[in-house]
């Protein structure tokens, strides 16, 4: 209930984290809107947030990735990954939390494996020609999609190190790549506001162009599939988050608010009924998708929110 304000989070609880330009990462009690804890992220903005399967939250920033322990009250990171020359744009985790993958402005995608024994370490690096904006691990855990600023999507096969290239729109910077949890569809959005969808089939999964949606009139920022694969959300600099039905690509909902500015990130709940958005108006919001109504607002950041991560729990 609202009065139950535990500052730390056990593994069995719902976690919503937001970060942005005010050098803090906030952990929220999602159902009440109360900020449970504020963690410190000094010196740089937060480009991306991801909650690991072991309840750690990784924050990708300028020249580093910081790992915070959600289950403790420690406001500082427990681990810092360093020695990166530029901004880290995206961070993700392997299904079991064994390793972490990132993509950055230094034109690389990397796999970080902090395990002690060098023999079992699977540290890898993948070099491309342009800054990497998006990295996405396929649910089969053996392929990473790497989207770069020149408009190319590289499909990096981790087993063979081979890669296939897709260019949906020449010279249009890829901003985000999403793969649905069933591994059947891949979507990408670019800085022209266009969204491209491929179907993935075969082993290894081979992309076949499926749909082009003129999703937004401005810069698109993120795209994500719902857990039940029936919806795709695209967020944009046009201050909206749009939800598309994957069966016929009809626009289901356009989530806007007067004060809402650029929508930098979004996340679905486990039952695909609710969506979180984070905006540069420093508010995170929870929307009821069916009704298109605003359920909660999370107010506490002093500056823009540019990253959001949500971990739900099954009942």
């Amino acid at each position, binding site marked *: *209930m*609202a*009065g139950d304000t535990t500052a730390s989070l056990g593994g069995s609880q*719902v976690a919503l984290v937001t970060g942005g330009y005010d050098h*803090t990462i906030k952990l929220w009690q*999602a*159902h*009440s*809107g*109360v900020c449970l*804890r*504020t963690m*410190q992220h*000094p010196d740089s903005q937060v480009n991306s947030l991801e909650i690991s399967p072991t309840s750690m939250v990784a924050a990708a920033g300028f020249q580093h990735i910081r790992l915070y322990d959600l289950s403790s009250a420690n406001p*500082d*990171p*427990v*681990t*810092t*990954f*360093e*020695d*990166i020359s530029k901004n880290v744009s995206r961070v993700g985790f392997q*299904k079991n939390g064994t390793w972490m993958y990132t993509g950055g402005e230094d034109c690389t995608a*990397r796999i*970080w494996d*902090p395990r002690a024994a*060098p023999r*079992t*370490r*699977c*540290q890898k690096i993948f070099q491309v020609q342009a800054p990497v904006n998006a990295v996405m691990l396929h*649910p*089969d*855990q*053996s392929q990473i999609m790497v989207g770069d600023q020149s408009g190319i999507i590289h499909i990096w096969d*981790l*087993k063979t*190190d081979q890669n296939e290239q897709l260019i949906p729109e020449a010279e249009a910077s890829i901003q985000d790549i999403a793969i649905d*949890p*069933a*591994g059947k569809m891949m979507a990408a959005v670019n800085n022209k506001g266009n969204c491209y969808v491929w179907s993935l089939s075969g*082993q*290894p999964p081979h992309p076949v162009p499926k749909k082009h949606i003129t999703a937004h009139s401005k810069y698109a920022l993120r795209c994500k599939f719902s857990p*039940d694969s029936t919806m795709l959300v695209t967020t944009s600099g046009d201050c909206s988050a749009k939800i598309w039905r994957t069966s016929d690509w009809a626009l289901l909902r356009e989530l806007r608010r007067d004060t809402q500015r650029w929508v930098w990130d979004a996340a679905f*709940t*486990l*039952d695909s*009924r*609710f969506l979180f958005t984070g905006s540069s108006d*420093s508010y995170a919001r929870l929307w009821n998708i069916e009704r298109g109504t605003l359920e*909660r*607002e999370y*107010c*506490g*950041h*002093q500056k823009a929110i540019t990253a959001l991560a949500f971990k739900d*729990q*099954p*009942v």
Partner: protein
Amino acid sequence: MATYDNKIWLLKNIRDAFIATDDTGLCEIVMAGEDFSKIFQIKGLEEKKRIKEARALQPGTSKIREGGDSCEDFEREIITQFEPYPDIDESEDEDPLGSSYVRYEEFGGYRQRSNTSQWLDKKEQALKKAAKIKVIKWEDSSPLSKEQCMELFPTVEVKPPEKQKSLLAQQLENCPDLPHRQYLEYGKFDGTAQLGLQTKCFKIFMTMLSEKHQNYPLVVCVIASAKIKDLIGFTCYKYSIEHPEISLGSVHEYGLCIAEDDGEVDWAFPCLDANEPCSKFGFTCLGLIELKNKKSFNSPPIPMPDDGHVFHLFPKMTDSGQSHNNPSRHNTGGSQTSEAVISALRAVNEEKKSSEDANLEKIQCHIMATEAPQYKSYKVQLLRKVRTNTSVQLGISLDRIEIEPLVTHKHVFWSNSRSKYFLHSIESVAWCQILETRGYRTTFRIVYSPSQKNNSVSDKNASEHAGYSHLHTTYKYHDFESDHETAKEIVEKVNTILDLLNSSCRREYKISKEKKSQTRRSFHTKHLS
């Protein structure tokens, strides 16, 4: 050690010291009208101008006027008594008086730690923090063989996730109405764990709640740029999270007052101004109060029914005195009991009304007391016995009363020599009162004594008003006319100032009035109330 002999500079610094170190903010209110630095700057410029002109009139200065630069040099040489110390910003002492403004810790009088030790402390803490953080640097490991890759990155079979119920959805359903939601917008003023932003901590006592909730203050940390109204909002937000069972009202209903460490609110001081930033106030213990307690208590009066129909309030009244055993006491409506009840109801209502009025009066008095010393000017009509009334600007401040004629174009021919400018030092003003009200116009009088310190530039014609004389003091007066509200305000303002200062002139006038009223008991004069 340094000695300072420039009176102007000393005065300015003393004034600034009062304003800077007064946590209640009242010094600023009182001294707001007197910006000495500006006054002295203006005076300094005037003085310089005067000296320059005087020098220019002297022979042999024409050479200096050749170059523009040399003119400036020439001006720079003139130092008047209104100058502060030269190059004060580059002073070696580095603002020696400024360091005396530094407030000491609450307990004990040890001086604050120097910047170096604070910086070293911070460094040490940062190092300790960094030591706890594990740092992993990217290591370019030897390339993995194919077999290794196959082993390390096995393809996992992808199963479409089964439909699951969300814990969040359940939690949302169970918590629909949250008391703190009305204060959500104030959540952003939270100062905890904010890096790089100044924060301020307060202990807020919830004095508007019942006793048991007042004992422990709520410790609140806000960003320093938050205003008092934001602090109130954030306090309500935090409190309603911690105590959802207690409902708090709208943020506008509350105010913050200075309080003691034990939570005792200092009612003598007004509430902190809601629009001021928190960082301005040095007090860390504050009490949250309901604003309506400071205003009049607005409970409605008990409904006063018509006499004789009070029975609906007290149904048993009809049976007053009724007794089964005593039939003579049946139906005694209008009995002593009912009369007593009616008069009691009336008394309660009147008391409520008068306490309302008393509270209102108190508030108004308080407002008057703070605003009275501030300069304010009014457009009124100066009444003259012989000539037509003239529009004047009546300026009232703590040290003087100015009467400045407002010359309109119509009257320029008639009145240029007639209307004169009057300036009376407040020390010489003895009395101010409303004389009479006729329709929309009200006449009021200001009585002064010209024999006191008086800079009046009045001509002889103006001083033909009949005066009161008591012993050696002659009193004269100016009569004015204005609308009722303005007249009332002026009279109240002047009287507040006069009461504040209580000059000898006023005291003497009061004495003389008393004596007169004793000797003229049988008269009803227009002038004396």
